[in-house]
């Protein structure tokens, strides 16, 4: 009888732990503003997600750096500004805010980069913006230089930050 009771206690404890674990597990988020939600920006049709196991399919050897920092996964989507300027937005979900900081801090500033107020820390370049907020590391990458691009990227970045 005692053995049955112990077995039941262990089973219930395991179940609680598993459920707690599931509850704590971070999900890969979908923080992408819909078309028009940020003035001038249209979202592409596809949102793709990769987890730690298949991240290399998206960023090849670059995946190792993120895996070491505790990546859960990434959501990625393309945007167009005023129908022309194309941008890819990657939102990495890390296990911890420290993981996002590790990735953010690994990038050396450039002569034309500047700090911007986005999330916990942000940096803007001519054709890209990177910021972190809690466990999220967000990167907006433009594919060509265009007038007004920096301001447009920042506006989109703020739109994404608001959904995180």
């Amino acid at each position, binding site marked *: 009888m005692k053995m049955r009771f112990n077995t039941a206690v262990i089973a219930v404890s395991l179940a609680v732990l598993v459920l707690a674990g599931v509850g704590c597990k971070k999900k890969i988020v979908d923080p992408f503003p819909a078309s028009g939600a940020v003035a001038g920006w249209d979202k592409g049709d596809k949102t793709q997600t990769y987890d730690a196991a298949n991240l*290399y*399919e998206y*960023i*090849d*050897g*670059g*995946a*190792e*750096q993120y895996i070491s920092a505790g990546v859960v996964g990434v959501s990625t989507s393309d945007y167009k500004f005023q129908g022309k300027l194309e941008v*890819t937005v990657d939102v990495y979900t890390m296990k911890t805010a420290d993981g996002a900081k590790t990735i953010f801090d690994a*990038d*050396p500033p*450039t002569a*034309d*980069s500047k700090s911007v107020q986005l999330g916990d820390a942000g940096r803007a*370049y*001519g*054709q*890209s913006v990177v910021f972190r907020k809690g466990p999220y590391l967000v990167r907006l*990458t*433009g*594919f*060509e230089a265009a007038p007004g691009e920096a301001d447009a990227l920042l506006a989109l970045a703020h739109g994404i930050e608001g959904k995180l």
Partner: protein
Amino acid sequence: MQNRREFVKEMVAGAAVLGTGTKLAWGQAKATEKSKVVIVRDAKLRTPGPAPDETRVAALLDHAMQAYFGAQNPLDPWKKIVRPGQVVSLKLNAMGGRAIAPSVALVTAICERLQQAGIKPGDIIVWERNSRDLESAGFKLSDAPGAVRFTGSDKAGYEDAAVTYGSVTTKLSKILTQSDLVINMPVVKNHNIVGVTMAMKNMYGVINNPSTMHGTACDPYIADLNMIPQIRQKVRFVVADLKTAVFEGGPSYRPEYSWNEDGLLVGEDRVAIDTISAQIVQRKRAEKGLNTLEQKGTPNTYLVTAADAQHKLGTNDLARIALIEQHIA
């Protein structure tokens, strides 16, 4: 070469000398000869839009190929490389998207030259590991009979039987095994594990399990992989798009760490090509005030392994590399 003013400089081990020095026939380089690497740049390659000037890209290709083969006619180099009836494929590195992938204009120019050299359109395959990478680089997937095919190994599949060399056990893409000749079309990028990714690392895109080969700075995996007979024997010529290159933060495209090299590199010796590419990245890093790849902990050790007595894939000795740099003005 009307309307072009060019100057030629050959740098051997960092010292500029005039003249081409070496004339290696296709596939006939001897151990005592220097490995030739040709880089041609065109400062007017770009248009105001995202794509380069198609006419200038085609001219750049002809110029580089003629310089490499010492040919007077732009078609002659291709007739030395291919024979009618062969299946010729172009393995691109398009993982970084169109900003850091071989341009559509360059691929189109090569396909045209191949056809003029007698290769049927249906026997030309433009490919990447994943077809979506090809699409993201601006190519439209196509499997139309009788036309140039644009596809990926994810669609064509991999051979059932694994092959092994040293540290590498893998399955090869059926596109590789079905090709008689593969033209390797990499791009120059910093890589946060291996230092610089170029010709030899691009072979990670012809196998089914590249993610298993990134430990220990990809060494000896890269060298061992390039020793697999189907890769060593079929992937024999490199045409690298140097329009844009990445000096930090790679292998993904990072505009803040990229620069316009506006050139094209051709050659056969994959180790020599990667050695020169590493120098190009090192030079840009120094210019930007960044530490060296060695200081960063990513010193391209695979180059030493690839050149060692066991592998003999080429030379990483600058004294044995004839770098020919030309500029189209």
